[in-house]
């Protein structure tokens, strides 16, 4: 009979699985930290030995160049740091416009797949197949060079009532200059919006209690129009129109929408709209057909079924995809550099990088900004997703 070796019930401390895992994690963290430290110090040492300037001091130097379009005051005497801000605002502008329009286009296309009308279904399919498969850069070039460059020159502009002008330099719209009493009109608009929200709440409560429907949409529309108009009349129209006027080479005054912005917004909208359309189709298909049948059996119209029953349940599937598509759109907006729209990439990584030569700092700052935008989109969409997620029945 062999004698079993006496062993204590405790294993050695380094064989304990929990302590082992802690040791591994500590080693891995130290190794990663060491790795990053090596990379950064290697880069800085190499840059120094090659005589390349580093540091962020360049952000305070005068830029010396002009930017085509800026939402904040800017000219060549401002600093490079200011060009960073101008670029960020331009990127936010084109991304926001494109996200809103792409969502609208995407939902229309997605819902069209389920129309009773064969032509609409086929057109939706053709739309998605075409615009999903052509590279975005080609689409941007198409809209910019082919379409917009076939517009007439400044002196032969197309115009609507001599007030709105369209030519190869852009779309010129009249601007509204607010005078002192305009504050009352803004207050009236805010009041109207609050009023609409209150009406909606009251109408819903009334429907829950008595089952009677209230025509919320027409009443809200009336409120939104009548109340501000009343304020305008009572304060004697405290707004001045500023019309674009042809002076010398071009129109000045009014609001100018540059063709680069138009081309970029159109191409991003159409391209991303195709993907969102497919996502909406996936979402609508994911809703069990029993829901549609039940809705039909209680006498709802097709449009009501889609709006009240199907789409709210489809949002569970659509929202995560929308999250990715919006982030994709923001990143795709950097293709603005191909047509000269002054977004963050073009202005900062393009011109500023070339004038200062500080590639590493500039690219790092730009990457951080896009990462921040996409994380904001992700957080907002995830909150929305949580709100929309239904408990499985």
């Amino acid at each position: 009979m062999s004698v079993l070796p006496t062993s204590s019930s405790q294993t050695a401390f380094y064989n304990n699985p929990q302590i082992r895992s802690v040791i591994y994690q500590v080693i891995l963290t130290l190794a990663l930290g060491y790795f990053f430290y090596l990379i950064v110090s290697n880069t800085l040492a190499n840059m120094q030995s090659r005589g390349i300037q580093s540091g962020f001091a360049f952000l305070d130097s005068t830029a010396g160049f002009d930017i085509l379009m800026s939402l904040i005051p800017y000219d060549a005497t401002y600093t490079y740091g200011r060009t960073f801000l101008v670029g960020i605002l331009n990127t936010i502008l084109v991304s926001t416009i494109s996200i809103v329009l792409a969502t609208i286009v995407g939902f229309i296309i997605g819902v069209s797949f389920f129309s009773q009308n064969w032509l609409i279904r086929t057109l939706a399919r053709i739309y998605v197949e075409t615009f999903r498969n052509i590279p975005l850069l080609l689409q941007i070039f198409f809209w910019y060079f082919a379409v917009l460059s076939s517009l007439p020159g400044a002196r032969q502009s197309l115009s609507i009532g001599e007030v709105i002008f369209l030519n190869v330099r852009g779309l010129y719209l009249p601007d509204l200059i607010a005078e002192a009493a305009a504050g009352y009109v803004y207050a009236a608009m805010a009041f109207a919006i609050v009023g609409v929200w209150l009406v909606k709440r009251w109408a819903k409560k009334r429907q829950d209690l008595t089952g009677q429907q209230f025509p919320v949409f027409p009443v809200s529309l009336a409120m939104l129009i009548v109340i501000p108009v009343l304020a305008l009349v009572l304060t004697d129209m405290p707004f001045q129109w500023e019309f674009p006027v042809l002076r010398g080479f071009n129109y000045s005054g009014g609001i100018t929408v540059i063709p680069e912005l138009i081309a970029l917004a159109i191409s991003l909208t159409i391209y991303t709209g195709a993907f969102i359309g497919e996502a909406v189709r996936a979402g609508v298909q994911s809703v069990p057909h029993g829901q549609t049948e039940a809705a039909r059996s209680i006498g709802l119209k097709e449009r009501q079924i889609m709006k009240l029953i199907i789409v709210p349940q489809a949002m569970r599937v659509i929202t995560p995809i929308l999250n990715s598509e919006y982030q994709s759109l923001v990143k795709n907006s950097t293709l603005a550099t191909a047509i000269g729209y002054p977004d963050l990439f073009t202005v900062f990584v393009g011109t500023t990088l070339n004038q200062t030569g500080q590639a590493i700092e500039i690219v790092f700052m730009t990457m951080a900004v896009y990462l921040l935008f996409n994380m904001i989109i992700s957080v907002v969409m995830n909150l929305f997703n949580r709100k929309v997620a239904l408990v499985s029945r």
Partner: protein
Amino acid sequence: MKLKKLLATLLFSSVGLVSYAQAGTLDDVKSKGYVSCGVSTGLAGFSQKDEKGQWSGLDVDVCRGVAAAVLGDAAKVKYKPLTAKERFTALQSGEIDVLSRNTTWTHTRDTSLGLNFAGTIYYDGTGFMVRKELGVKSALELDGAAACIQAGTSTELAIADYFRENNMKFSVVTFDTSDQTRTGFESGRCDFLTSDQSQLYALRIGLKNPAGAIVLPEVISKEPLGPVVRQGDDEWFNIVKWVVNASIEGEYQGVTSANAADLRANGNPGQKRLLGTEGDLGKKLGLDNDWAFNVISQVGNYAESFERNVGMDSPLKIARGLNAQWTDGGILYSPAMR
């Protein structure tokens, strides 16, 4: 044990991350067997590829000269087309050995990028090109106009200064390549095209209606164009600098690709020193003594290169002007070869 393996791999990989000493570019080029040259994406007269894939131009000739001097054969060059935005990073990172891409020599570029400018091969300036039908005769009439500019060039700064000095307003439309600026100009997106004057002449040829565009007389900035190399490599810097000087000195001494072989044997002392039969100027650069002979016989002297690429033998038809020898009314002046 898995833990030991992990530790060992980490240790060995971190050793490899230590920065390596920079080998001299001359040795690199000799062992590679070719010169890696950064050029433009296509600019007539300076660096352009023809239908057969052959590169030619003033900038290309600098690279061919360097290859002829170092490797004895002007054809041993690999060309890398670069946009204005990527050109300096490519040179800084070691992707190319020399940047010959109509690059303007400025203070900031010389000091803060870790680069050295190895001389000037073309004295240029920023100019304006407008459509004839606008009836504009001088740049001072361009208040409120829109400009087409290539992004990331010294032109952007020069234009901003000029318009500010003269209290004029303008708007700027930037494009990535000079070809796109031409498309923008033709479509009417902007009123005038602005760039180095040599580029304007090159771009005008490519217009659908070259006669419909005029180059205005004003030259508003100094744009000395020349090759660029990395800092910290004095040997290579000297070589590129003196290849440029050899070409200019060749014209001054009357040495051409046709008579170089003859003058090597029977020339005057100045010519013999340049072509290597007397003195050892080549050895002092770390090259063979027939370095300049190879440059001039295979690429030609400055005058031949100029006339062939941008002068009267080319579609651009640019006059020598400032780019003539100092004895001919220009400012080209090479230090003595002795």
